[in-house]
């Protein structure tokens, strides 16, 4: 009896799954096992913990975010493959390879993982890598908080993946609408896993939002006033502003859903005075800003890439800044377009439809500004530019599809159809993912010291572009043919099957593209001697990151730069300016394990909350509080790098007198 209480809802059945899920658990477990084996064999545990897991260096944190994000992208991509396989086979008398409930868990996991862990992970990874260097500073405003953010992200990720092995996941879609997500219709722990992995990761995101706003506002180097910042930094400022306004709504809303499920409150129940429509409003009040949170930094990356590879100033800098803030403000005024079909009436629907269209204007302005940056430039089509070209071609189609959907009567037909699914994948894949891939490829030499293999990079981009077209054009068509999303079976008389099969081939091509992208990195690292970036400025770049050695030293700048103009590094090259070689001792933050420790407490809290293991949640909470207090009491948080070391590092990379 006592043991039963100690373990909450956990029992032997929590570990029993169907064969496909068991394969997934097997792959996950074996990967962890072999990784641990490798670390032991090569005796790298100390290095892993000392150099990486306890690091407060924004660049290392950035790399770790990206590695986790790519792993999650692969996992969720595999989910997509399972979904395409199911929908290609499950017609008429054939019911495919997945039971309905399992299929529903897979697409819910696919969406949740992609948005919260793949896309957000790539975003925070790149923001961490690039923002401090682009503004000429040595680290973010709150380096320890930065590490907490990362580890909370990991903690949420681990909790979500635990659902594969222990228990099950939500089958209510990536947003878990009630009444379906209430206990009555989702009696298993799946929805609770969804709630708590998002809750934990969400707090991490919120803290990062605060961190980067303060960093950008207060840590820019001398002379870099706001209108001289790189456009990427503006886009991050806009995105992080959205984070601090939007994420608290998510935190509040999913807490209320959890309370409904745990103690029987009536926030969103259908009865007892609850209001499920209120959930839909609240979750989209977060959800719509979320998609702009994801896309704005990707836009910013393209601004940097197009200017650099066209060897030309970004066109319409001021317009671009205004466009970002127009998008930020407008993104809070459109949320109802996600549920025109909920019956709010013509006036309300009309208003939100019009607001949604208005947001298309600043977005369109940005596209034209990029194109005009190319005009009368000297364009090199390296891999990052291929991603950009793919983005323009595919994102535009998704964008006009979105404007179409913004007209309520059109949406009445196409809402929740595969047309909608194709639209938002057009935005997220060819916008968000292409942008972040381009950013990783673009900045790779700066944080690794290695130039990436161009040929493999271009092939990867082509495969993604081709794969996307093959995978999603059929989905636009399927929507017009009346195909609803999330169906695990359909009748052959619909005529949908051939299109699903073609879409499946597209996903395989995309998978090939992802493999090529990863191979590009692995191969280039393997050939690192030939690929070494010896100048720190492989593209004849425009912004400050190209003025420091590759890989960027721990402290970024040996001498903090003084900026005179936008694209100051480019200007200083044209004007043949030389640096004032005045070195000073600098302070850098010491490593800390407290972030990692705090997040293990968060995991305990979450796991206990999911399985109703009260003592575990309390222990988790105490660990979190204890960690915060421990950090507050820590006095010795910095160490000094003497200026002699800075001088030596510079001489080693640049030679004497630079």
């Amino acid at each position, binding site marked *: 009896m006592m043991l039963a209480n100690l373990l909450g809802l956990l029992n032997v059945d929590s570990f029993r799954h169907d064969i496909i899920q068991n394969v997934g658990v097997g792959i996950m477990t074996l990967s962890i096992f072999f990784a641990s084996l490798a670390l032991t064999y090569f005796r790298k545990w100390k290095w892993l913990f000392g150099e990486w897991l306890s690091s407060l260096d924004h660049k290392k944190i950035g790399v770790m975010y990206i590695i986790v994000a790519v792993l999650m992208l692969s996992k969720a991509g595999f989910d997509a493959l399972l979904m395409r396989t199911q929908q290609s086979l499950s017609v008429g008398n054939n019911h495919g390879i997945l039971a309905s409930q399992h299929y529903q868990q897979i697409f819910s996991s696919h969406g949740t993982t992609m948005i919260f862990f793949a896309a957000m992970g790539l975003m925070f990874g790149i923001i961490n890598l690039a923002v401090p260097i682009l503004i000429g500073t040595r680290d973010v*405003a*709150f380096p320890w908080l930065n590490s907490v953010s990362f580890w909370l992200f990991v903690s949420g990720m681990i909790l979500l993946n635990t659902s594969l092995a222990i228990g099950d996941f939500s089958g209510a879609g990536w947003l878990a609408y009630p009444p379906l997500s209430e206990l009555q219709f989702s009696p298993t722990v799946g929805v609770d896993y969804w709630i708590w992995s998002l809750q934990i990761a969400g707090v991490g995101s*919120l803290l990062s*939002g*605060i*961190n980067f*706003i*303060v960093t950008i*506002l*207060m*840590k820019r180097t001398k002379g870099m006033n706001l209108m001289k910042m790189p456009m990427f930094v503006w886009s991050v400022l806009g995105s992080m502003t959205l984070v*601090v*306004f939007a*994420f*608290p*709504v998510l*935190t*509040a*809303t999913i807490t*209320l859903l959890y*309370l*409904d499920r745990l*103690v*029987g*409150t*009536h*926030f969103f*129940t259908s009865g*007892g*005075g*609850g*209001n499920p429509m*209120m959930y839909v409003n*609240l979750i989209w*009040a977060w959800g719509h800003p979320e998609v702009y949170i994801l896309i704005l930094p990707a836009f910013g990356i393209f601004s940097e890439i197009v200017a650099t590879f066209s060897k030309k100033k970004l066109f319409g800098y001021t317009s671009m800044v205004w466009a970002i803030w127009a998008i930020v403000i407008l993104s809070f005024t459109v949320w109802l377009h996600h549920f025109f079909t909920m019956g709010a009436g013509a006036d309300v629907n009309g208003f939100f439809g019009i607001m949604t269209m208005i947001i298309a204007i600043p977005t369109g302005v940005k596209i034209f500004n990029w194109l005009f940056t190319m005009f009368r430039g000297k364009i090199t089509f390296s891999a990052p530019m291929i991603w950009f070209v793919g983005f323009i071609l595919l994102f535009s189609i998704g964008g006009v599809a979105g404007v179409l959907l913004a007209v309520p009567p059109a949406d009445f037909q196409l809402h929740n159809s595969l047309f909608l699914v194709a639209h938002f994948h057009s935005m997220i894949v060819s916008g968000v993912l292409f942008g972040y891939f381009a950013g990783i490829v673009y900045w790779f030499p700066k944080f690794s010291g290695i130039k990436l293999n161009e040929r493999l990079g271009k092939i990867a981009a082509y495969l993604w572009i081709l794969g996307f077209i093959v995978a999603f054009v059929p989905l636009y068509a399927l929507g017009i043919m009346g195909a609803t999303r999330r169906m695990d079976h359909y009748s052959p008389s619909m005529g949908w099957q051939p299109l699903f099969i073609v879409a499946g081939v597209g996903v395989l091509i995309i998978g090939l593209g992802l493999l090529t992208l990863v191979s590009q990195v692995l191969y280039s690292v393997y050939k690192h001697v030939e690929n070494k970036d010896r100048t720190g400025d492989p593209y004849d770049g425009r912004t400050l990151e190209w003025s420091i050695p590759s890989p960027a030293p721990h402290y970024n700048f040996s001498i903090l730069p003084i900026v005179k103009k936008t694209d100051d590094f480019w200007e200083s090259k044209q004007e043949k300016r030389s640096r004032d070689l005045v070195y000073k001792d600098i302070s850098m933050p010491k490593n800390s394990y407290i972030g990692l420790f705090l997040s293990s407490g968060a995991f305990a809290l979450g796991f206990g909350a999911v399985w109703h293991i009260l003592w575990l949640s309390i222990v988790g909470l105490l660990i979190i*509080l204890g960690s915060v*207090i421990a950090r*507050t*009491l820590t006095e010795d948080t910095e160490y000094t790098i003497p200026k002699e070391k800075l001088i030596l590092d510079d001489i080693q990379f640049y030679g004497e007198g630079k």
Partner: protein
Amino acid sequence: MENNLVIKAENSKSYLGFWIYILTDCVVFASLFAVYATLHNNTNGGESAQILFSMPLALTQTIILLTSSLTSGLAIIAALNKHKTRILLWTVVTFLLGSLFLFLELREFNHLASMGDSWRASGFLSSYFVLVGTHGLHILIGLLWMIVLGLIIIKKGLTAKSMKGLVMFNLFWHFLDVIWIFIFSVVYLMGHMGL
């Protein structure tokens, strides 16, 4: 010299960060207020706010909390005058007032629940308990914060770091006051008037 402790340049990052955190907390409360506004008439056959809530109690709680804001401000003034004992004195008073506030609130919650008006009874009560309860949770965190701050000041004295902590705590405590004013107005006052 005294003002330097508060205005020191390195601290301004922390203050800006803390203000932004307060903003995010505002959004959390705004969401809970929106939920309360939507659900406050969904009594599920039970009694409404007008009947259930006691104005004298709400008024008492308000006076206690506002006074505690005054005393926490007095702690800051003591800090500016570098008077370590007085800082601790006013912090203890603030702590006691905050604890009294919380005690009264929990007692009322318990009273309502024992009458069958728990947070499971209706959408109205769910939203009431969570809105007011979230504020109470923040008060609890404030109490914990005061203990930690007090111990630090006792052990290490008034340093730039502990001053920074004291200022941020004060921001937090005043913020909770502002939220309470809204709760008092929207939940108790408007409830009392049957709105």
